[in-house]
């Protein structure tokens, strides 16, 4: 039974010019499609990874999951509850404490004028819960000391701040944590510590993660199942081991090919050709067709549907 079900999720942003400009220049409204028809499921206590380049829509999916951004189409179900269903305020309130998020920039995600104690217990205070000793206990759980509760965020390093963010995310006893590139602002040595902490907490507390990243090694280390995003669409989805052992989609193959490897420093890599197409005027067929080495005429006219290939789902006409 899956805990999170995302079905046919789409999100468009209105990027039109102001009304008067449109009238004068005789232009139509313009929409940017950030997420297009995305479906996936996360089992309870599972870790699902979303990888993709900048602008592929991974953060937008994360923000729709936690309720910060309403979807244009499709639905999200978390534990059987739709975060955008306004009819049941009790279920909504419940969901608010079940879902938490860890952000990318630990320097912007803590209010600089608040003490660490107040930052950590805010999700509980918002629900009117008991907070005595909670901040101190959580700080020790994430590897900081109880005395840190009285300090301000500027007294901590990036890695320590990210631990404070994790403590805040844990305070309302959530079931699902959406991690939006939680380590990409940290030093490599600190990244490993934070990732290990997150793995330990998952086992200890039985958490479910949606892990968003552009870093394949990080995702490989953390996730059970991975979805590869390209221009707002999932092009390949597979279990972690399988994706890295036998990538099916040409885009995934290219990503794995160009990823830096520690055992082959200085190797020559064929440079990826082309750019991500304009998300305002999407090409009709496969979005990757212009850059794809095995593309045929059909690729730029017909959109490839998801196909099952063993344990892998792939959206490509020619993958095998």
């Amino acid at each position, binding site marked *: 039974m899956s805990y999170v079900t995302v079905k046919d999720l789409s999100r468009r942003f209105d990027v039109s010019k102001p009304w008067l400009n449109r009238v004068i220049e005789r232009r139509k409204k313009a929409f940017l499609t950030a997420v297009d028809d995305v479906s996936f499921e996360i089992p309870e206590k599972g870790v699902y990874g979303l990888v993709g380049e900048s602008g592929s829509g991974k953060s937008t999916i994360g923000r729709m999951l936690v309720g910060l951004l309403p979807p244009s189409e499709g639905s999200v179900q978390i534990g059987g509850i739709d975060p955008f269903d306004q009819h049941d305020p009790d279920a909504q309130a419940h969901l608010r404490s079940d879902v938490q*998020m860890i952000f990318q920039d630990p320097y912007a995600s803590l209010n600089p004028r608040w003490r660490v104690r107040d930052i950590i217990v805010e999700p509980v205070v*918002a629900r009117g819960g008991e907070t005595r000793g909670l901040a101190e206990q959580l700080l020790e759980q994430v590897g900081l000391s109880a005395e840190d509760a009285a300090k301000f965020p500027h007294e901590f390093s990036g890695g320590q701040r990210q631990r404070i963010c994790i403590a805040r995310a844990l305070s309302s006893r959530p079931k699902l944590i959406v991690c939006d590139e939680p380590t990409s602002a940290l030093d490599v040595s600190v990244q490993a510590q934070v990732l290990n902490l997150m793995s330990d907490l998952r086992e200890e507390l039985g958490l479910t993660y949606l892990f968003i990243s552009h870093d394949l090694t990080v995702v490989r280390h953390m996730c059970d199942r991975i979805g590869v995003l390209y221009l707002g669409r999932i092009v390949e989805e597979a279990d972690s081991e399988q994706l890295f052992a036998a990538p099916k989609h040409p885009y995934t193959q290219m990503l794995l090919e160009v990823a830096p490897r520690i055992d082959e420093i200085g190797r020559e890599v064929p440079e990826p050709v082309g750019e991500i197409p304009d998300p305002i005027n999407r090409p009709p067929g496969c979005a990757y067709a212009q850059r794809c080495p095995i593309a045929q005429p059909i690729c730029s006219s017909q959109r490839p549907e998801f196909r099952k290939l063993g344990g892998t789902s792939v959206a490509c006409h020619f993958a095998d």
Partner: protein
Amino acid sequence: MSTSIGLRLRNALDSDFAYLFLRSPVAVLSAFVVIVLVLAAIFAPLISPQDPFNPIELNLMNGFTPPGTPNAFTGESFWLGTDDQGRDVFSTILHGMRISLFVGVSAVSFALLLGVTLGLLAGYVGGWTDTIIMRVADVQLTFPAILVAMLIFGIAKGITPVEYRDQMAIWVLILAIGLSDWVQFARVVRGATLVEKGREYVQAAQLIGRRPGAIMLRHILPNVLSPVLVIATISLALAIIAEATLSFLGVGAPPTQPSLGTLIRIGQGFLFSGEWWILLFPSLTLLALALSVNLLGDWLRDALNPRLK
């Protein structure tokens, strides 16, 4: 408890802020002048040699006594001389400063409250709320502040009954200056709010279901206050001058509650008949007050701006 206060005091004296302050002679001097003038205004009834509004204490024979010389009839001597009614100019200045400062501080507080609230709303809510608030602000900015103040003053005076006019004058003055001054608070707060709104700590508060009001007050407001402090200080100097200007033009504080501006207006009538002190001393006081508050504001702006350190 006392140790923690002592510790806080020592920390405050150790801070960068105190260091920068003590290193700037202009800041120290203007702070000194402001403190002396404010204390003098607060304790005016205790310090001033006579109560200039109590006719029993006045002696018409003392009229037009020059500063520092004994009066020809009564033999009484006044530091800064007396006006035509025999009022001690020093006492009227102390009491006038009280009214000037009261109007200035109240008007700035009113403008700050209004401007910060509207700026937060415009920046955080956005959309039509933002458009309406900022367009009103833009329109108001195209008129000189003193003109707006006079307009509001005129309307308010028109709708208050005659018998209350003198009592209400001070409050109308505060309202008029405050309403002409909220725009710069709103603009600065709106800009800073737009920056803070995009930060992730605001999203963290949104996703746990904090209401917009709580996010604006508890999360964003503390982070946009330091530019507000600078504007408030500079606005205070401007508000004191605006009040003096209105009173000088005869639409401000009534002669029964003379502010510095009213005193200057009264004094200028005697300039050509040789009683220069009735005009000069209130003017110098106004100059000292406005200048030192302004210099303090300037210094504060530099000290709070991390790019200038």
